[in-house]
Each structure stands twice: as structure tokens, then as C-alpha cells.
């Protein structure tokens, strides 16, 4: 089963060679076997999953099935899911059962795709290693002593270990792309506004964007077809004509101009990662593409800008977690202020508190102009760099992360070292551009290496075309992690 693409699974379902219930049960069994060592899921509810699968089977039987009906999917625990515990990886929401479905969840339900459960994540999506989760770190299936990346670490790990054929993720500064790179899968962050944020618990509203995570670019294209679309409940949702993101998958790459930002191949990049990415460029050249050197001069400021703007928005977005109406409340308190202080001191983890403090600081009287406003100006300059770059190229290519998956605990004590992991991914969020990561090799320790593509606004189909053509001539995305005894289908 693990070698099947989403379209292959859908075809088998449509042909009634397998039922959605059988398929769901197979994945649930695999989750039961592997999750104890990987910790990719926070919540699994077989009964709910099988009920949704049965409903999908009914649709198929009635001939009312869409392209992916009956194919199960795992959802990041950042999406409110009606009747499911929705924790966002935090103690603060450890008792929160959402009373409604996020727009993304609604769309997958409408497509007849059963949920396999809610995946682990860095607390409130703040982290690059999935170590900040209240529910414990997720282990990288390629080496369980290593992190899967974050914040969508559970989503990446469950797809890499084939505990799910696909998963949803969210990306504020690289949270889809970096874990995809660390686990050898494909993940895409769409243009800001393409996927509704309604029901997706906010980290940094102007940067957050949901996207698909799956083994291949083709899978991501099909998932994107389900996820995108205007939502009147999200004022930043874009009203555009529906498009088929798989339409250009098979286009040849002849004439494609691939921009290589010189700043992304400079100091700080691991040499094995650099070599793998350069090899991928060679592969693309064979397919007819032309490399072009470009410059994204202001992208070196992306991390400081991001660590002003994202915490600023987060400090405000997380104010609603006050113990008054839902979620965790400290058991003992002497007054209202005491209740607030204890609830938030006990309910949030260290990284979340750090970012709330940074955010409150940069917005405070006397510092706003120097930090927040200044960061907004540089954000504009970073976006301008991209606009200029897309005059000279069709898609930008570089490494997704400066290195491969690091060891659990290796960077936990040094936030700045941790933040540097998102050096190459953050600029796309700041500019609102689409970006994706796909596997392009392995380092000497057998860890996956990710290649990042950044496209112009709404150029998802183009990026998926490039990725798919590359994946037609490579097999990095088909390789499976060595999962020992638990992996029944390892080859």
C-alpha cells in the first residue's frame, strides 16, 4: 500500500478493489504499530475514522465519489475539528474539543476523505523541531534519535512512515517545507490567501498558510485542488477562479528559467545539502531548464524581521487563551489577575512564552516604531526583491534548510541556532509567495535532503510541474525509512 500514490488509491477505491474502511483500517493498524515510537499523532479515534470511511464507501457505492473520495488523510492538530480534541500541541488546549470544523476540514470532509487523526506539532506551531509540543517530541522515522523538523513534524513523520497517505500542514515560516525536507516527503505552502485560515488556530495571521504534505508533487496537486478556494469567513481569503493544480504536471520544462539566489548558496549551508541541490539543478538542466543566478539581497534580514512580526501577531493572537471561557485554567488562584498569570504560566510552554514576551515588547509604547514598523518596511523590501527576481526567472530554487535533521535536544538550548533553520523558508512567508520542498537526495548519514522551490504569486501549478518532472526522473520521494520490525511493508 505504501507505494501507492493518492491517484492510485483513489482508482482502487473507485474500482471497488478496496473499500475506504479497509484502507482506513490498514492505516490505523500501521499507526497502532508505529506511532508509539514516532509519536506523530496526538489523537487517533478509530471509531470516528471508520465511520467517516463508511460514509465515503456509501458515496462510492452511490457513484457520488470525487477524485479522492475514500482516501484517508491526517490533519495537523491546529485545525479545529468538530467533536475532536484540538490541542494545537499545547497544555492550554489539552481539554478543548472543537465545536466546529475549520474550512480546510470542511473541504476534506466534503471531498469524502476520512480523517486518520490529529497530528503532533510544535506548541501553537512555534518551533522548527517539534520538540516544543506538550505531547512530547516527534521522532524522525529515518532516525528516531533525530527531530522530524517543525512545526508540522507529526504530519511529516506520519507521511514519511506511511502511517497516512497524506497530511495537512501549516506554514508560518517554513513549518511545512522544513519538516518535509527533514523526512523526505513533498510539501507545499500556497500563496497567502489561497487556503482559508478559518478554524486554523492562528500563530501569525499575516504569515500562516495551510498546505498539503504527501510523498509526491502529484499528490500535493490533488490535495491542493481540495484545499483551496474562497471562504467568506476569512477576510484575507482570495476570491479567484477555481483552478486545477494538476493541469500542468506533464508539461516539459524546456525553456524554464530557474533562479538560483546566490545568498542561499553562501555561508552556513551544509556542503552535502549544497551538493544535492546542485545535482538537482543538473537534473533539471537535462530536462531543458536554464539556471539563472539571481539575488535576494534583503533575504538575509528575513529572520530578524520574522522574529519581530510573527511574535508581535502571536502575542495578540494568543491573548484569548486566558482560562476564562475554554481550555486550561489554573486550579488555584487568588484573584482575576492571579488566575490569568497562573493559567498562562502553567498552560504555555517556554517557547510560546518567549515569543509572547518578544511580541509584547516590540509592540509596546516607545519600541513599536523601531521594531514593528521597521520590520514591516523590510518585509516590503524582501517582497520587492522577489518581484525583481521573477523578471529574470520562472521559479526560484535552493535548499529548503541549511542542513539535515538534527538530533533531539541538539538545538533546544539555543533558540537563535534553532531559528536559523528557517533561513531559506521564511522569505516566502514574508512575501506571501508559494513555496515547496521536495526530496533531492540523502546525506552521508542517510538523512533526507530537501530542495525548495519558490514561485511567483499563484504559480503553484508551475511549481508542481517542475517538481513532478523532477520526480519522474528521480526516486528520492519513493524511498522509505528503515522502520525495523514495526514496518510490515518495508522493502
Amino acid at each position, binding site marked *: 500500500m505504501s507505494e501507492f500514490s493518492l491517484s492510485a488509491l483513489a482508482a482502487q477505491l473507485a474500482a471497488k478493489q478496496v473499500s475506504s474502511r479497509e484502507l482506513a483500517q490498514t492505516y490505523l493498524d500501521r499507526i497502532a504499530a508505529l506511532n508509539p515510537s514516532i509519536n506523530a499523532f496526538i489523537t487517533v479515534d478509530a471509531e470516528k475514522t471508520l465511520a467517516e470511511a463508511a460514509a465515503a464507501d456509501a458515496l462510492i457505492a452511490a457513484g457520488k465519489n470525487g477524485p479522492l473520495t475514500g482516501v484517508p488523510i491526517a490533519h495537523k492538530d491546529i485545525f479545529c475539528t468538530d467533536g475532536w480534541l484540538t490541542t*494545537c500541541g499545547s497544555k492550554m488546549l489539552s481539554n478543548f474539543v472543537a465545536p466546529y470544523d475549520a474550512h480546510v476540514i470542511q473541504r476534506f470532509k466534503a471531498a469524502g476523505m476520512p480523517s486518520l487523526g490529529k497530528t503532533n506539532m510544535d506548541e501553537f506551531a512555534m518551533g522548527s523541531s517539534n520538540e516544543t509540543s506538550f505531547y512530547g517530541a516527534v521522532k524522525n522515522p529515518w532516525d528516531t534519535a533525530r527531530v522530524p523538523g517543525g512545526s508540522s513534524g507529526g504530519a511529516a513523520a506520519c507521511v514519511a512512515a506511511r502511517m497516512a497517505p497524506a497530511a495537512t500542514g501549516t506554514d508560518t515560516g517554513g513549518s511545512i517545507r522544513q519538516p518535509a525536507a527533514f523526512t523526505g516527503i513533498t510539501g507545499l505552502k500556497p500563496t497567502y490567501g489561497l487556503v482559508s485560515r478559518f478554524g486554523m488556530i492562528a500563530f501569525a495571521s499575516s504569515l500562516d498558510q495551510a498546505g498539503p504534505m504527501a510523498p509526491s508533487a502529484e499528490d500535493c496537486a490533488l490535495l491542493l485542488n481540495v484545499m483551496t478556494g474562497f471562504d467568506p469567513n476569512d*477576510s484575507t481569503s482570495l476570491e479567484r477562479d477555481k483552478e486545477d493544480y494538476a493541469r500542468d504536471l506533464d508539461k516539459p520544462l524546456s525553456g524554464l528559467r530557474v533562479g538560483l539566489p546566490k545568498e542561499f548558496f553562501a555561508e552556513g549551508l551544509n556542503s552535502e545539502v549544497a551538493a544535492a541541490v546542485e545535482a538537482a539543478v543538473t537534473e533539471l538542466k537535462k530536462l531543458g531548464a536554464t539556471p539563472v543566478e539571481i539575488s535576494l539581497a534583503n533575504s538575509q534580514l528575513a529572520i530578524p524581521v520574522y522574529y519581530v512580526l510573527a511574535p508581535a*501577531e502571536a502575542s*495578540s493572537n494568543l491573548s484569548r487563551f486566558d482560562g*476564562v471561557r475554554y481550555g486550561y485554567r489554573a486550579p488555584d488562584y487568588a484573584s482575576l489577575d492571579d488566575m490569568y498569570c497562573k493559567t498562562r504560566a502553567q498552560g504555555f510552554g517556554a517557547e510560546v512564552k518567549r515569543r509572547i514576551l518578544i511580541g509584547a515588547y516590540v509592540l509596546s509604547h516607545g519600541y513599536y516604531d523601531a521594531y514593528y514598523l521597521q520590520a514591516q518596511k523590510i518585509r516590503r523590501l524582501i517582497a520587492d526583491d522577489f518581484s525583481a527576481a521573477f523578471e529574470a526567472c520562472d521559479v526560484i530554487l535552493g535548499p529548503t534548510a541549511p542542513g539535515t535533521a538534527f538530533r533531539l535536544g541538539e538545538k533546544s538550548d539555543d533558540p537563535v541556532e534553532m531559528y536559523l533553520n528557517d533561513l531559506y523558508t521564511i522569505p516566502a512567508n514574508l512575501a506571501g509567495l508559494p513555496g515547496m520542498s521536495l526530496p533531492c537526495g540523502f546525506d552521508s548519514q542517510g538523512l533526507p535532503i530537501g530542495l525548495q522551490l519558490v514561485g511567483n504569486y499563484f504559480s503553484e501549478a508551475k511549481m508542481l510541474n517542475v517538481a513532478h518532472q523532477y520526480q519522474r526522473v528521480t526516486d528520492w520521494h519513493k524511498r522509505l525509512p528503515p522502520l525495523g520490525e514495526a514496518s510490515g511493508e518495508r522493502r
Partner: protein
Amino acid sequence: MKWETVIGLEVHTQLATQSKIFSGSSTAFGAAPNTHASAVDIALPGVLPVLNKGAVECAIKFGLAIGATLNRVNVFDRKNYFYPDLPKGYQISQLAKPIVEGGALKIVVDGEEKTIHLTRAHMEEDAGKSLHEDFHGMTGIDLNRAGTPLLEIVSEPEMRSSAEAVAYARALHTLVTWIGICDGNMQEGSFRVDANVSVRPLGQAEFGTRREIKNLNSFRFLQQAIDYEVRWQIETLEDGGRIEQATVLFDPDSGETRMMRSKEDAHDYRYFPDPDLLPVKLGEDWIEAVRAALPELPAAMQARFQSGYGVSAYDAAVLTGSRALADYFEAVAKACGQGKLAANWVMGELSAALNKAELDIAASPVTAAQLGALIVRIQDGTLSGKLAKQVFEGLWEGAGEVDAIIDARGLRQMSDSGELEKIVDEVLAANPKSVEEFRSGKEKAFNALVGQVMKASRGKANPAQVNELLKAKLQN
């Protein structure tokens, strides 16, 4: 030393939209707690605000009505603070780029007209309510009001007395209800006033330190609170004290203001643009459509009443105290063709009766058409003023239409001059003393004779006719 009072007002008006500013929940007042609180209103994780265009339209109406600048691009900001009835931990408001800037309102105090300039008006959401009673050491939170659209209207510090402040607040109240953006119900909190008050030695250019009196929900309290505050500030200064910037509350029971928080306790609200909402763009088409749909405004109507119906400036101002009153007056005036008489009746007999019965003009038992018909009967001589009052009473009681009441109650003014002449002759014959006095030059005696004739006719005689007849007879 002579002191000058300086007052600026911040008025929170609840906008009269059906649903909340960022959610589809009802804004109706008085529902059971938390029954008008949706996922958005209680700030569940993941929910997002969607702007109610109706609220923006209200703000546009207001901006046009006061001749203000409408910012074609205006921005919502987050005002961050923690309070249990503020579910998101921030209020969505407008700080740097409000929808309305500038504009002015005319007030009249002691017959003198004065223009009060406005600083700005911005849209924001209301908070919920904290109920501190009835919960045994706990606080109840009702989020029905959370997210109700508000327009906060800020004046320049241009008022110099509590009377001016009240006149401004009243004029503003009239305007926002007139253009239909606020129901004006002060008891229900639809129109809440904060007053920034300071004093300074007369002639000094700089302002004194101000204190802000929060949440005044009647014009009387506004007046009382300012008067008390001004006295307190002057006394404090004259005793050698200093005024510290502070927020104070007015206690209607004691008639005093008391400190709520000092400047030191002031929040740092950490305002920043709300990333969940796009900047609000006002297209010219939209603005022009709103302008075209605006009713005639009080100032324009006052001018028209003066020129068209010949009423005084004062009467025109009173008659435009509310749109319902103005519309009523105009309907009466049109029905009878007598502007001045219509004004007298509306402001006199009708207003008195309505006040006594504690009724609003909209609930008047006497319709404008009926009052107009009544005035027609005065004008054509059927009724004297006195008889007309009796007919009015009949109308008030619902006894039928004007002519029916006149007939049924026999209130028609005596029109037969033969009958009247007979009464005059009888009165003259019966009062020789008064006749004698008049002839010897006592004008007063004439009035006594008129009174006797009126009495004898049981009020139905036409007073002008009586005068005429009496004069003729006495000069013989």
C-alpha cells in the same frame, strides 16, 4: 482668580445594524445571557472577523452628515488588554487611520450659536458585560453585547461649560438618531458619553490637566458630573493642590466623581494593524450612494422651516429636535397651510399632552392629519382657540375626527350674528355699571363685558365678532 472650563467629549454610539460588526450574531438588546454569542463572539480558537458593511455605511452616513473627511482607506487595529468580558484579549478598533476625521456640529446655548469641531470618529466593537452580582464571589460574563458595532465620536476640547457639553451631546444624539445610525437609547447604553474635563485660569493659552469622566448615560448626569468635577478641580487648585491625569467615575447617588485609575495605571494597549482584516476601502460610488440616500439634515430643515413656514429660529430648532417631531410638524403644517399655528400647536398643546402622558411623538394618539384638520377649523372661524382645545381633548381621547367631535359636542363657534347680538344686548342690559365705567374711560370694563358675553355664549361666540359688536353698541 477666574477659571475657564475646557471640555471635550468622546461618545460611544451603538450602530443600529441587525448583526454584529464582525459576526452574524444579532445585536438585539435584552436577550438571555450569551444567547447572542457565536463562535466568533466568544473568540473560539481559529475564528476570524468578517466586517459588516452595514456598520461602515453608518460611519459613512455620519461623516457626510457632519461634513467630515472620509478616509478612503481606513484601517482596523487591535487594542490589546485582558479582561474577562473582552473574549479575544483585544478590541478591534481604529487608531491611526479612522474612517472619519474632522467635521463640525452647531449648538445653541442661551440663544448663541457655536460651532463644535470634531476630531474623528472611528468604528470599533463593543465588549461584553461583567455581572458582579448574583454569582456568590464570582463574576458572570454575558457576551451578547460583545462585537456590537460602535462609532466612537471624539470632539475637540471646544466646550466651555457643562451647558455647552450637554447641548453638544444633545445635538449629536439628535443627529445620530436622525440619520438612523443609532437608536439613541441611553438607558440601554446605545449612547454613552465620556467627558474630558480640565480648568485653566481665564486667558491662559495652555490647557490644564484633564480628568476623564467615564460612561455617562444621561444628559442630566453629564451636566451634574461636569459641574461637580469643575468645582472639585477649581477647589483643588485654589487650595494649592495639583490635578493628576486620571480616569474617574460619576456616582449619581452622591453626585460626586471618584478616581477609577491614575495615569500611572494606564494600559499600554500595544496597538497594531489587525492582520485578520484588510484595510477598508471606500469607493466614490458607495459614498455617493450613501449621500443620495441621506435624509434632509436638521440644519437644512431648520432653515427651510424658517423660510417656508415662517417659524422663528428658536421654534425651528425645537421642531427639529428629532426627525419624528420634524416630520410630524411638517405634516401638520402641510395639512393646514398654517406654519406658525402648526408650530404653536405642536410645541404647545401637543407637546404638553405628550409630556404629561410620557409618550414619544411617534406614539401620539393625535395624528398629524387630525391636528392639521383642527387648525383648519380654527382658521376658518369654526373654532375659537378655546373651543379648539376642547376638540383636541376629544382627539386625544380617540373620540373621532375633528368635525365629528365638533358636531357631537356642540363646539361650533356661534356664526349667527343675530343670536350673538341678542346675547350682547342682554349682557349690556344686565351690566349697566360696566357700561357706565367704560363710557367714563375705563378700558378694563370693556374686557369684563367681553367676558360676560363669552360666558353667556358658553364659549362659542367668536371673540373678534364680540369685540366688534360691543364696540359698535357702546359707541351708540
